[in-house]
């Protein structure tokens, strides 16, 4: 204790010693002022030094040239395997219920010609008169003299048929959905979608840059829990646009989306619904008006309906229908509409004739339904294959009862079945095709597209053929 006090006294004396009681310019200089001046001097000295950066030499031109020489790109395509070389069968006549492949007549279950309109005389006549009047192509986008009066007539006809205020026509089926989604969904919006949607929808979701959340395929409990999780105590969610994107009939599995449930959930959690009715337009409902009519849901509750016309309507192109605001917005902001040539006019007149035919002959729907029921019964007991689709779906999806474990080997097995069925029994069916860009992980299978134009003997033929070949290959 004494030593510390003694030390402190000594320090004080030392500090005060040099300039004790000195007066400079009228200011009393005390010892601590010296320390403060020294400190300030040191700080100023350090500030004037340059900060340390590790030395960075820019590359010389020669070094850049060497780097560019060394870089080797990957090839544009991967090594070509045998399965890549297989070509699909080439048709030699119209793809109706019976078609000609390699000179042989086959029963065709691979075309989505649900109402049997391929080869219909009225439609062919309207196409021909349209071709003679307007030529083939429309030679321009809709904004620049590519709007022909048949397009406007077709849009009005479809809107009248569906019971919506307005509709808009697209020139290609698959581009409809991937143009509509980015027009209404931007970065920051929330989209809840089924994990089994097809590539067109996936591309649209990716291009929209919104937050995408998947729920289990066609599982309403999973949808409800996802919606609950997203909106629970989330104040921010109320200010952004929220959508549920579903397909009416999933082309990857043949399941039908339960629209009444979805509308109930949508109203509870305040989401909007975008419905892709490519395979259900002209198929479901008493008069073919689609999923909403089938479930008895008023059409105004569904915000946006899109459909490709390449299935039931036996023409090409697509349409989107909804309220006036929805349709009008797309005319300037939907890229597949604005930046692309419009639908060839003869296909638009084919669409008008097809819709007229459907409205005048609703019996074609009962024929389709009885064909589906008959085929379902015939295929319900196949060796090694099980039906995975909904009983009312016109796409009948057969998957392997016992999967081999990988998509590739499953697909090989299924391809063997379809090839043998075509070669030996002259029945044309197809297996699932998956692109490398497709994110869908649903099981692969064999697809049969039922048409109202198929006869009972066609259906029996395919059932017998599949039973025989499946027994040989799978068991």
């Amino acid at each position, binding site marked *: 204790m004494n030593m510390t006090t003694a030390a402190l006294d000594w320090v004080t004396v030392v500090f005060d010693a040099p300039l004790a009681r000195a007066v400079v310019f009228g200011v009393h200089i005390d010892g601590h002022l010296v320390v403060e001046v020294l400190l300030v001097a040191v700080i100023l000295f350090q500030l004037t030094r340059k900060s340390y950066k590790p030395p960075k030499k820019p590359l010389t031109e020669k070094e850049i040239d060497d780097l560019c020489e060394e870089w080797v790109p990957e090839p544009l395509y991967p090594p070509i395997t045998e399965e890549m070389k297989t070509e699909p069968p080439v048709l030699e006549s119209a793809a109706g219920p019976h078609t000609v492949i390699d000179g042989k007549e086959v029963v065709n279950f691979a*075309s989505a010609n649900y109402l049997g309109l391929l080869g219909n005389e009225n439609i062919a006549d309207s196409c021909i008169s349209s071709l003679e009047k*307007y*030529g083939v192509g429309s030679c321009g986008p809709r904004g620049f003299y590519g709007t022909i009066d048949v397009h406007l007539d077709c849009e009005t006809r479809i809107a009248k048929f569906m019971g919506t205020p307005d509709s808009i026509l697209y020139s290609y089926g698959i581009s409809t959905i*991937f143009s509509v989604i980015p027009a209404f969904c931007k970065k920051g919006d929330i989209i809840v979608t089924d994990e089994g949607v097809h590539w067109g929808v996936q591309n649209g979701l990716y291009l929209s840059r919104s937050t995408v959340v998947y729920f289990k395929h066609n599982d309403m409990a999973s949808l409800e829990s996802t919606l609950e999780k997203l909106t629970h105590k989330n104040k921010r969610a109320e200010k952004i646009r929220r959508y549920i994107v579903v397909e009416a009939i999933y082309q990857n599995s043949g399941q039908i989306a339960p629209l009444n449930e979805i509308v109930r959930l949508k109203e509870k959690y305040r989401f909007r619904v975008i419905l892709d009715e490519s395979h259900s337009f002209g198929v479901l409902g008493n008069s073919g008006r689609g999923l909403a009519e089938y479930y008895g849901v008023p059409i105004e509750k569904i915000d946006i309906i899109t459909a490709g016309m390449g299935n039931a309507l*036996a023409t090409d192109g697509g349409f989107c229908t909804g309220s006036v605001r929805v349709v009008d917005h797309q005319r300037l902001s939907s890229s597949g509409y604005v930046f692309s*040539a419009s639908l060839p006019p003869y296909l638009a007149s084919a669409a008008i004739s097809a819709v007229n035919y459907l409205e005048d002959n609703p019996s074609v729907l009962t024929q389709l339904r009885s064909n589906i029921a008959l085929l379902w019964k015939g295929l319900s007991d196949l060796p090694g294959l099980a039906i995975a689709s909904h009983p009312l779906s016109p796409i009948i999806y057969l998957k392997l009862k016992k999967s081999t474990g990988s998509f590739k080997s499953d697909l090989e097995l299924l391809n063997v079945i379809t090839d043998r069925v075509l070669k030996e029994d002259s029945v044309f069916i197809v297996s699932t095709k998956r692109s490398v860009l497709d994110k869908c992980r649903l099981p692969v299978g064999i697809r049969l597209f039922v048409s109202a134009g198929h006869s009972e003997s066609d259906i029996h033929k395919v059932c017998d053929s599949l039973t025989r070949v499946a027994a040989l290959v799978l068991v």
Partner: protein
Amino acid sequence: MTVLLPIPPLVPIPPIAVPWEVRRMVRLTYLTALTTLLGYVVFFVFGFLRDLFRELLDWSKSDDLRGYAPICPPFEDFYTRRIYHRIQDCFARPIASAPDAWIDVVERYSNDNNKTLHRTSTASRCLNLGSYNYLGFAAGDEYCTPRVIESLKKYAPTACSARADAGTTRLHVELEELIARFVGKPAAITFGMGYVTNSSIIPVLVGEGGLIVSDSFNHNSIVSGARASGATVHVFRHNSPSHLEEVLREQIVKGRQPGTHRPWRKILVIVEGIYSMEGEFCKLPEIVAICKKYKAYIYLDEAHSIGVVGKSGRGVCELLGVDPADIDIMMGTFTKSFGSCGGYIAASEEIIQYLKHASPAHLYATSMSPAAVQQVISAIKVVLGEDGSNRGAKKLAQIREGSNYFRSELKKMGFVVLGDNDSPVMAIMLYNLAKLPAFSRACLRQNVAVVTVGYPATPVLLARARICISASHTREDLIKGLKVISEVGGLVGAKCLPAEPEKAKKMD
């Protein structure tokens, strides 16, 4: 004093800056730029005021959409509601005939200040300077139409199925062989729509870890395909091979990630043959040389140039003397020159085999309508002279002479005209947004149908009128078009350059 809060922009401010080479090309003076901007400012101010009044008036109205965010936020379609709707009658004009050299433009009227337009049953016959009908195949053709009708009767309007399922017919196989032969590549694949071709092929070729270098004026389908691919996208200045080289050198050195300098998987350079808003050709020989030097792959989009330029119509490669084997992927559409619909990709056998296996449009999308396929086959046969006549060569000569004549006459009148020699597309610069409807409506009154384009298809300050010449335009048609455009252009004030004196114009 109150503190200034940062207010987010209530409307999206469009990019106004114009690169200096483009400014020089389009002769944009400071006075023009200022007056154009002033015009936009006036529109915006009035638009704001009207929006304000609309909000006040709608305050009392009930809102059924409680709990939902509006489906179109007010700032997103500000441009549509307040600017585009005023001039809506200049766009999307319906026609009641084939898009040939002369068309019947349907007259429309509006009861609510252009917000909704209704058709009447009267139509006026106008000269068509807007449709992409370069070789005149739009209306019925004596060789093509009978064959198209026969194919329609045999194969039906569609096959209701994807190409990989049941959509491939003999016609599709024939078309692929024919287009590969026409373009000069070993193999080809066709799709039902040009837009989908770009959007679904580019992601298959280049994925994540790849680099896409595309021209700044590329079409929306290429931009959409590049974005969907997941690769990094860099843009090089329009038609500037030197800037392309700079970008490539920088990117190869930098690599995929700034820290680790991992090398790029592959580099794809995307250019177009003719740029449709300017009418100029791409500098293909220089760009091909650079791509070869840096081992980048090149993708050429010949939507507007296939079948039109070149001695036998084979596109920019023939015109500029580039060997098709040097270009990795050649893409094109059938809409413009062949009067049909759809697109194609021509490349080596292996690439086409891979695309057939992997491209979503081939596996999922409905195949091209057989009648449209037959139209392309017949049109190509006419162009090649394989139909037994020389109509193809005559059409090519006619479109070349017609477009060169039209362009030189326009330049003589003092308009600022964009577009290279031999290109069937040319643009007359109008700059000012208010001149677009004036030009368009005045021309229509004198029975000439022109296309006027503004933002967002062109940069903000560079609105223009775009002319597309067709092989079915006769010399009289072109003279009439020139007369009307000269008169209207003078009224509107688009003759920015001094006109050539009359006695020097002793031509034809």
